[in-house]
């Protein structure tokens, strides 16, 4: 699922720090205690936009970080609105709802662990590629 590889070039200290920070953006939003699913994405998006003219290594990892947040956003948004419907509308807590929350939790936890690991490795200048997201990033993010 996660692969450590060599990048096209050896990134500098400054680059590694910025690339690592792109993953930390989503973690910071989580640590700040914000439960809304969009906050993590927005934090990562703003960081991505701020580094659009950065080096290839930085841009690449900002893009991978952003893309991973988008997929989790869909899962978390559904959980959020389903919960709102139960609290404020006529929906009731069902087995399907609990199963969905647990599935969402598993995916979020997996994404959290992967993000933490990637942030640490990227900080060392190691190029970490995520299954599916790396291929998508290669498609979107060009060298220059």
């Amino acid at each position, binding site marked *: 699922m996660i692969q450590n590889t060599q990048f096209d070039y050896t990134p500098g200290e400054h680059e590694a720090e910025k690339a690592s920070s792109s993953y930390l953006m989503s973690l910071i939003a989580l640590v700040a205690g914000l439960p809304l699913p969009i906050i993590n994405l927005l934090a990562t998006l703003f960081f991505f936009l701020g580094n659009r003219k950065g080096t290839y290594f930085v841009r690449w990892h900002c893009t991978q970080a952003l893309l991973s947040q988008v*997929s989790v956003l869909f*899962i978390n948004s559904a959980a959020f609105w389903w919960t709102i419907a139960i*609290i*404020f509308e006529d929906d009731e*807590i*069902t*087995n*399907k709802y*609990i*199963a*969905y929350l*647990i*599935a969402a939790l*598993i*995916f979020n936890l997996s994404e959290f662990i992967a993000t933490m690991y990637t942030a640490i490795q990227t900080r060392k200048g190691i190029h970490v590629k995520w*299954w*599916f997201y790396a*291929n*998508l990033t290669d*498609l979107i993010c060009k060298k220059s």
Partner: protein
Amino acid sequence: MKKITLQGATIILLFFTTWFLLDQVDWMTLFEIEKNTEKTEEKLGELYLEIFTNEDSEITEPFVIKTVDSIISKICSANDIDHDFIKMHIIDHVETNAFALPNGHLILYNNLIRESESPEALSGVIAHEIAHIEGNHVMKKLIKEVGLSVLISITTGNGGGQIIKETAKTLSSTAFDRGLEKEADLLAVDYLVNAQIDPEPFASFLYALGSNENEMVNSLTWLRTHPDSEERAKYIIEYSENLSTEFKPVIMKPTWDKLKVELKKD
């Protein structure tokens, strides 16, 4: 591109498969969801009831209880409502009000019964509050106004007496939102018609007092907390026009007159 699409589809499939497999486990029983939900509502009902019965005395005169309860019994049996769940309490209070608390507690202030022009008008108010109970509007309102975490902390004893008192005011002094009020009104009409109780006196009660601008209206808290009485009366009448049935008196006149006399003694 094809590889990416396949990988993306695999991730989506993985999520739905995880969800499906987890759905095979009976989480509701494992976490005792229904039991805990009922417990929370039961506890809240007890706490709020205590607030109101501590402030004013509950009327326990058997004739009064039996007479008013006969209205509830008639509405419940005609509408397949669990009568044991509706717990009526007639409270001696200056205001003219009726409201529902969590866990099926129905509070009627004796002044409301005194001010009701007919047993059918009183039946309408009771049916309206039963509709709120059956529609689970009470808990929804509390969660909206107070917040879920506060409610849970109240039941676990961390909420403090002050929060309970403040939130008790919410239940007795404010109406539900327009949608829920209309839902309760129309459901009340259904309940009344099924029980062969004429809903028109209820509508007339609302209409006459909603269009009356004298001081009496201001003292009728039940109306003050349920705005747009004229509009409500209109749609109740319109709705009930389509429901034709033979109506019967809910309480015989001598019994109703005696009830009023008994309540005047308090």
